[in-house]
């Protein structure tokens, strides 16, 4: 009887305690949210700025572009040729040598450059490794010439078909395809004319590497724009926390039974709520400006949301070494730049430098930056339509990296800001 009452009491006091813990954190979180939303500056840097950037870029980079001058093309020539009156025609080979010989510019005094460098292979299976093959060889386009290619060219009534495979995300694919299709049209036209017919039709079937078509530079930039808004959260997290120190309100909190974890938790929670708003607003804008996404917005949002936690951690780390809010926000702006720039690496085609590998999954040097992990993952999800299981390694890496940052932040804040002062 008594014992039961005792355990009941114990239970009650435990739940009450948990309640208090939450209440403390929530109250601080609410405080920070009020401070954040009452400061107009924050709304400008964290939401308006990336939104304007995104709208601007959406208008400029809404189409594919390429900086490449020569394209690497992989050709699988399955053409078995066609024999007519003892003469065997192999138009597949002719097409290949045409591709190999076309150069530009034709102007005098300049060395001509090949438009295509042709690599040939006999067998080609489009599998999940395609993407890797592409990456490794820097291929821009794969051309598959069908078995009946020569026969079809001979048969004037039938469309001449080839298949191309490529990665539309690169932009280079789009350009190489454009170049190829004009050469291809020309080739078929010339051959048929020489055989005594008019040009006829050519058909190119496009095959994507698990990818939706029509990817633009803008599409590649979208994760960057959403992420820059979140990266800017470093500025407000660090300055709000340093302000707390500078204005001595931190001392007031320090004297209460509140613990570091409540303070950090409250601030991190506030940041998460802000990030949620940013993610929704910025993705909505990207959609309005023609973001070609086939993947799950929810998964992409979750990835960026988790990444945002590491941004609050970086803010805390900066706050732990800053004495003035103005200094904290300057440091934050400087730190934010590389974090932001790295989100454009896929656009610039900068490749990952591996740091270590686990079961064939590569963890790159830049992956210690959560923005890099998140950008790559969001691209995988939104453009290649990958799911959580496809990006499991990166997802877990992001969580681990974020936890590491958070731990460092909590430790530094409690050591450098919440201990009795020496001065």
């Amino acid at each position, binding site marked *: 009887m008594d014992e039961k009452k005792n355990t009941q009491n114990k239970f009650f006091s435990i739940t009450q305690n948990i309640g*208090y813990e939450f209440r*403390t954190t929530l109250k601080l979180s609410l*405080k920070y949210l009020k401070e954040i939303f*009452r400061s107009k500056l924050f709304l400008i840097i964290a939401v308006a700025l990336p939104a304007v950037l995104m709208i601007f870029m959406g208008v400029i980079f809404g189409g594919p572009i390429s900086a490449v001058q020569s394209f690497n093309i992989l050709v699988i020539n399955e053409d078995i040729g066609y024999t007519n009156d003892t003469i065997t025609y192999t138009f597949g080979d002719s097409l290949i040598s045409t591709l190999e010989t076309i150069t530009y510019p034709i102007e005098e005094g300049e060395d001509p450059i090949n438009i295509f460098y042709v690599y040939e292979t006999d067998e080609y299976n489009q599998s999940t490794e395609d993407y890797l093959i592409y990456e490794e060889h820097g291929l821009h386009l794969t051309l598959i010439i069908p078995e009946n290619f020569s026969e079809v060219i001979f048969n004037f009534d039938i469309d001449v078909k080839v298949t191309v495979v490529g990665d539309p995300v690169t932009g280079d694919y789009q350009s190489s395809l454009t170049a190829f299709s004009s050469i291809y049209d020309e080739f078929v036209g010339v051959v048929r004319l020489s055989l005594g017919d008019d040009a006829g039709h050519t058909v190119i079937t496009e095959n994507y590497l698990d990818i939706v078509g029509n990817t633009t530079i803008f599409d590649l930039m979208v994760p960057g724009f959403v992420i820059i808004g979140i990266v800017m959260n470093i500025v407000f997290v660090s300055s709000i926390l340093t302000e707390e120190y500078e*204005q001595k*309100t931190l001392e*007031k909190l320090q004297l209460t*039974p509140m613990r570091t974890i409540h303070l950090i938790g409250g601030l991190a929670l506030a940041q998460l709520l802000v990030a949620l708003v940013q993610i929704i607003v910025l993705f909505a804008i990207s959609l309005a400006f023609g973001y070609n996404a086939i993947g799950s917005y929810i998964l992409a949002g979750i990835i960026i949301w988790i990444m945002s936690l590491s941004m609050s951690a970086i803010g805390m780390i900066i706050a732990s070494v800053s004495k003035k809010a103005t200094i904290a926000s300057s440091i934050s702006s400087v730190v934010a730049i590389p974090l932001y720039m790295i989100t454009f690496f896929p656009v610039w085609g900068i490749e990952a430098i591996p740091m270590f590998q686990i079961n064939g999954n590569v963890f790159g040097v830049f992956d210690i930056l959560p923005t890099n992990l998140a950008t790559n993952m969001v691209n995988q999800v939104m453009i290649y339509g990958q799911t959580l299981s496809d990006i499991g390694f990166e997802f877990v890496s992001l969580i681990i990296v974020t936890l590491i940052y958070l731990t460092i932040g909590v430790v530094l804040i409690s050591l450098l800001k919440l201990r009795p002062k020496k001065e």
Partner: protein
Amino acid sequence: MTASKEIETQEGEAVRDIGSSIEVVDLKKHFTSKNLDEAVKAVDGLSFSIRKGEIFGLLGPNGAGKTTLIRMLVGLLKPSSGQILFNGEELNVNSSKLKSVIGYVPQETAFWKELTVYENLSTIGTMYKIPNKELKERIDHLLEGLYLTEHKKKLASKLSGGMQRRLNLAMGMVHHPQILLLDEVFVGLDPQTRNYLYDYLRDFASKDDKTIIITSHLMEIVDSLSDRVGILDLGKMLALDTPENLKNTHGKGDILLLEIDKEFDESLVSKIDKSVTDVSVEKKEQNISIKTLNAIAKIPEILNVVEAEGYNVEDVKLTKQSLETVFISLTGKELRV
């Protein structure tokens, strides 16, 4: 005020009596700085104890070390050496139990500018785990007492200086601490609020053995409010006793401070001592300090002696017998407010 009025405790001795709530043993705080050769001895070997339930006044000129001492007591500043004991136990800055019983109102105001008066108080109150309903009642009560009710929805940054000080005060008291440390809280308050605070503190201390440590430049308040007063200068406790005893021992009579126009030596001091009856004369830096009963009547006589010696008196300051005279006779300085 339950503390007894018996005379006790001289500087330099640690007193370990059962009723003591805070005990300080050889506490030191030396600040070193690059541009100064010598360390600033802000608190220089203090030993004293503060009893449970008493109001302890801390007097001292600017830079005496009052704030430094209080910040060490609440655990915000790390002492260079020495001990601080709360009810016999070493101060543990992480003890949540201890934190709940200590209230600190800093000399410099601190609050969240972007929050309203009410939000500031409810944030702090929540940190002390006060249930919502009770917290609301306490805040309303405090706001009323501090004449802030009509401003409770104002952003703290929009308050006047005096209101800010009142908010600062309320933030240190919302959790009804057992031990309240107040650093210069009477500064910048209008008489109305000052009176409220005075009554509040008296009332507060009379209940449940609550202890108050207060620094102030306002002698009359410290005099009438405190059970005991410690006089601090250059980090050392010059005297510690009840206001009555202090006045009897150190501050008998009024004090005349004469500012002399040029350098002078002990001969002028002894001349005055001999020529004027019932005075005790001392050289205190550039001033001559004369302790005597009924000083006003003696001013012309004293001035004559000084002038006869070939000096001019630039200024005369008269302080009637009070804690201030004790202060001046101990430190040779006036309190600057």
